[in-house]
């Protein structure tokens, strides 16, 4: 599997996700600087977590128009899978590759903790190694993770079965109490129409070894490898 990880100024999970990709595939991804005009030919593009351009204006808004993003959008439109984690999700939403927008957390606080997610689908290349409807524990670390879409867009997302993960409790119950940041319909991750682009606020790359607190993020990377191998 040839993967490319895009590195923006202030990305800080780029190396974590590179470690996760190498752990499952045995091959280190190419690290692509935001100022590069071309993403090399690859099987997967990852937009990592952290920050980008100080997240001025809105989180991900300036990065969405960086030189490298034109190439990312071109390759995504040509069918190359794209995974955006945390800030990467914000960039994908701002670039229009995914619907909605990530707003300031409803409680206004930066949230950094392990949360539970319900796996809504396992028929995609990102989630085939999970059981549908299962509950996984992965960390979040964000200030702007409050997923918002207007009524029509939200209806489209639900009707087209495009929710990847929802915030839930440890028993898998999705409720207001388990909605950590005010996201509409508890949405923690969302797919594009094709299921080949995934944006998610939680960090699967930080849950890939017992030493990190668990391995429940690993199946996401295994799923990708299984499909792209």
């Amino acid at each position, binding site marked *: 599997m040839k993967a490319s990880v895009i590195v923006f100024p202030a990305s800080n999970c780029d190396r974590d996700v590179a470690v996760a990709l190498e752990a499952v595939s045995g091959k280190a991804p190419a690290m692509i600087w935001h100022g590069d005009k071309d993403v090399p030919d690859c099987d997967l593009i990852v937009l990592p977590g952290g920050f980008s351009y100080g997240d001025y204006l809105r989180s991900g*808004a300036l990065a969405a128009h960086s030189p490298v993003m034109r190439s990312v959008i071109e390759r995504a439109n040509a069918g190359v899978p794209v995974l955006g984690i945390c800030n990467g999700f914000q960039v994908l939403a701002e670039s229009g590759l995914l619907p909605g927008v990530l707003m300031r957390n409803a409680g206004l606080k930066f949230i950094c903790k392990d949360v539970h997610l319900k796996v809504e689908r396992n028929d995609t290349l990102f989630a085939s190694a999970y059981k549908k409807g299962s509950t996984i524990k992965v960390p979040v670390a964000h200030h702007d993770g409050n997923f918002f879409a207007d009524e029509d*867009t939200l209806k489209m997302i639900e009707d087209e079965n495009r929710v990847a993960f929802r915030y839930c409790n440890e028993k898998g119950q999705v409720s207001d109490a388990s909605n950590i940041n005010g996201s509409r319909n508890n949405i923690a991750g969302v797919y594009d129409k094709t299921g080949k682009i995934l944006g998610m606020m939680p960090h699967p790359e930080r849950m890939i070894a017992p030493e990190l607190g668990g391995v429940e993020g690993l199946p996401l990377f295994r799923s990708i490898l299984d499909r792209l191998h």
Partner: protein
Amino acid sequence: MKARIHVTLKQGVLDPQGKAISHTLEALGFDGVEKVRQGKFIEIELTETDEKKAGEQVEQMCKKLLANMVIENYDYKLVS
């Protein structure tokens, strides 16, 4: 020519920051604060001198970058 741009949240979009400001204004003893909405003010100096052309330029800037049309509205004034 200068463009003075306001970017505000659309009606119906929750504004927790506005709410927090409202609570603090109340705590400071300001009565009669019914609702607070927080937005952004952006000032851009343009080389364009034709008002119509400048307006078109600013429209594009707002739509492409300055406002996220999913949640925000914009309006602007041109000042020479």
